[in-house]
């Protein structure tokens, strides 16, 4: 047994209202630069729907993740090492930018600078790839709230697996939101696909990162990830991905997407797992057995043998304690959380509590009591369509675990109603789903009350290791140096690397001027964060050019 710690997340889908705040704040924090305009480390897709990038779940087309060979081992679906190198000059599985969407801005300045005409001036969309006018016909979220989905729905790879009758029925049946980030997998196929070894899983907390200095732009990780959560920065020529906000996690803060989630539906914590058994668990024969296999390699942090082994593996004492308090471990214990697409065999570590709301909606919609345990149980048994769909997402098609999770959520609903209305604790409801009333109340506390300190149990990185934190190794001697975004001598962002904090600082400043404006000398308002007055925001001043904030290009010339 080799115990390792993994930082993980669980999202409670019932609470997601599809507001995209997580996506927007993540974008502001990490991908508000040119080259990654089209990149959403966090995206929220409406299901049923095609997702982002379009139809990414169709692995016959994209070749992501692992498959089991006849000999019972796993291999990369798009081919092993030799096959990867043979196809390195042009990667046949790489999504083009149009599979995500063509990024654009608007020529806003036309609104105020257009010559006087009979018509009201409009801000036309301009492609950020070519600078030309473009027709916006797709985006990261085109079928939001099932918008226009009658046209695109048939491209949903999950629906495609289900029967015709289901396809015809779905629209009446249900809809929910699925926020997605990188899964920080235990068996990451992106890492396995990287020819230069630039991608790695951090030994301390399992966060999967790209070493920007070692990435050589072979772009195999992009196609290797079945969730399409590694992106190619088309300006710098390097791969980028969700960082699990490691600079925040290292100091004990939740990720940006979790912290800003208005529904407070994200849980963060560490789990301990047996690294020696990952490959074995990922190669079990049946796709539907993968969920149990993954549950099995996650270790009980209260088991003395596990604690012993964790100590032997240099896991600090407070990390072990954090694993014991971890909301992730608890929710996995209640068996209400399920991984996304376990059949990709990457052992994903961002799990989901499936939504009960489609069921409740149907029950209440038909005039019945949506909080009555027996009605709900009956509805779960009867509503095969949403359950089947959820099973395709979370359990490789096996409805039993989804059923079980939903029944527990339903039981919690009516058990707690009993307490609230009749002040009665009906143990029978709890027992019907194999729990005790006390357990249900605990689960309720975690899921419904969801206190900040209970949602996020993040042990900070260690003080004795503090000097090693990437953020602490910086000094501010980078001013004016190369590598600060914008174009270096060898293309975008070439030059020496800078620590993230310094880089971000300069990025903020640079971004206001560096993006290609919709027309020369104008600022791209979409990328302006509201601070400072970058060049081009206002017409040239006639009053001399003293500005309190915002660095002007010509400052430099004046020395």
């Amino acid at each position, binding site marked *: 047994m080799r115990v390792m710690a993994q930082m993980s997340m669980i999202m409670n889908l019932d609470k997601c209202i599809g507001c995209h705040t997580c996506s927007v704040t993540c974008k502001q924090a990490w991908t508000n630069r040119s080259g990654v305009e089209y990149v959403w480390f966090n995206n929220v897709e409406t299901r049923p729907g095609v997702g982002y990038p379009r139809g990414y779940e169709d692995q016959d087309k994209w070749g992501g993740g692992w498959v089991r060979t006849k000999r019972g081992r796993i291999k990369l679906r798009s081919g092993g*090492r*030799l096959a*990867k*190198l043979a196809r*390195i*000059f*042009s*990667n*046949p599985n*790489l*999504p*083009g*930018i149009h599979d995500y969407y063509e990024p654009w801005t608007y020529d806003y300045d036309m609104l105020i600078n257009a010559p006087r005409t009979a018509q009201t001036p409009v801000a036309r969309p301009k492609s950020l*790839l*070519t600078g*030309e006018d473009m027709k916006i016909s797709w985006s990261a979220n085109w079928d939001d709230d099932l918008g226009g989905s009658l046209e695109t729905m048939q491209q949903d790879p999950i629906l495609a697996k289900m029967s015709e009758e289901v396809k015809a029925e779905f629209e009446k049946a249900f809809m929910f939101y699925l926020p997605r980030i990188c899964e920080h997998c235990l068996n*990451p196929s992106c*890492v*396995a696909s990287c*020819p*230069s*070894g630039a991608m*790695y*899983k*951090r030994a*301390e*907390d399992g966060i999967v*990162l790209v*070493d*920007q*200095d070692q990435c*050589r*732009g*072979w*772009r195999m990780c992009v196609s290797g990830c079945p969730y399409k959560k590694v992106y*190619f920065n*088309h*300006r*710098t020529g390097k791969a980028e991905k969700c960082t699990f906000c490691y600079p925040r996690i290292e100091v004990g803060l939740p990720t940006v997407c979790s912290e800003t989630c208005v529904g407070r539906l994200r849980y963060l914590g560490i789990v301990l797992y047996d690294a020696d058994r990952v490959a074995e668990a990922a190669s079990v024969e049946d796709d539907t057995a993968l969920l149990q296999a993954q549950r099995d390699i996650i270790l009980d942090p209260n088991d003395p043998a596990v604690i012993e082994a964790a100590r032997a593996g240099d896991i600090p004492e407070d990390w072990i304690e954090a694993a014991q308090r971890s909301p992730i471990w608890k929710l996995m214990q209640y068996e209400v959380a399920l991984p996304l697409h376990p059949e990709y065999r990457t052992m994903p570590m961002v799990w989901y509590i499936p939504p009960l709301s489609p069921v409740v909606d149907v029950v209440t919609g038909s005039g019945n009591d949506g909080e009555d345990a027996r009605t709900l149980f009956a509805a779960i048994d009867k509503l095969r369509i949403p359950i089947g769909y959820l099973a395709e997402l979370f359990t490789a098609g096996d409805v039993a675990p989804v059923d079980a999770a939903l029944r527990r959520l339903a039981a919690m609903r009516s058990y707690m109603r009993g307490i609230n209305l009749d002040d009665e604790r009906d143990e029978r409801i709890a027992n019907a789903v194999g729990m005790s009333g006390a357990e249900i109340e605990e689960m309720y506390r975690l899921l419904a009350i969801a206190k900040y300190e209970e949602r996020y149990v993040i042990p900070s*990185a260690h*003080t*004795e290791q*503090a*000097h*090693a*934190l*990437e953020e*602490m*190794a910086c*000094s501010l*001697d980078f001013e004016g140096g*190369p*590598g600060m975004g914008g174009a*270096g001598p*060898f*293309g975008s962002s*070439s*030059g*020496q690397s*800078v620590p993230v904090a310094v880089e971000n600082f300069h990025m903020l400043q640079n971004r206001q001027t560096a993006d290609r404006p919709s027309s020369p000398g104008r600022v791209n308002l979409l990328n302006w964060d509201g601070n400072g007055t970058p060049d081009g925001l206002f017409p040239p001043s006639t009053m001399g050019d003293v500005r309190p904030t915002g660095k002007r290009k010509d400052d430099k010339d004046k020395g």
Partner: protein
Amino acid sequence: MTALQIVLWVAVPYAAIAVFIVGHIWRYRYDKFGWTTRSSQTYENRLLRWGSPMFHIGILMVIAGHVVGLLIPREWLYAIGITEGIYHLGATGLGSFAAALTLAGLAILVYRRRTVGPVFLATTVMDKVMYVFLAVTLGFGTLATVFYQLLGPGFHYRETISPWIRSILIFQPDVALMAEVPLLFQLHVLSAFALFALWPFTRLVHVFSAPVGYLFRPYIVYRSRDAVRGARKPRRGWDPVQQPNPQRLHGL
């Protein structure tokens, strides 16, 4: 031996080699982040799917051919039974095929760079300069082969250019060897050295990162946070904060 000859066949090659070596070291230290293929496949794949493999397979064959033709003395090849005749057949046959493949690939790539909007916009000045020198070098090389080896009587570069390049590499330059070489070959050599001098400052640096190590490493890479740090050494006087050593405190 004129002054011009010494400049062309001693000074220029050594200068180019020096720039090549020092340039790569400098670029690697200064610009690890810019060391990439700068792939443009996300923009366009229809042309690249043909152009890039054709060009790369062609150029790798060409490079292999040059190693055999230039660096390996022909006596060694004789020793393992590769006679002049066999060599000539192989070199001209395979060489022409490789050249055709490379040039066709290059043509597709350059056409693509120019005509596909996003690719053109992402093309840097160094890309353009690189393509000019690459095309010129390949062009002279192909012309020389066509005129002398295919159509002409055959020029024995293994008696002149090859020993000369080896004499450069062992620091005993023999200028006289290059004096009588036909102009096309001379231009091919000179443009190649110009390309070498440009090499470290272009995207061609990606050649030195060819990921052979991938064949031998385990699939999943783990790294410790500690090992990750220090992409860049802190300046003197900016040493990172260290935890005080309690042992030393007690010793006071």
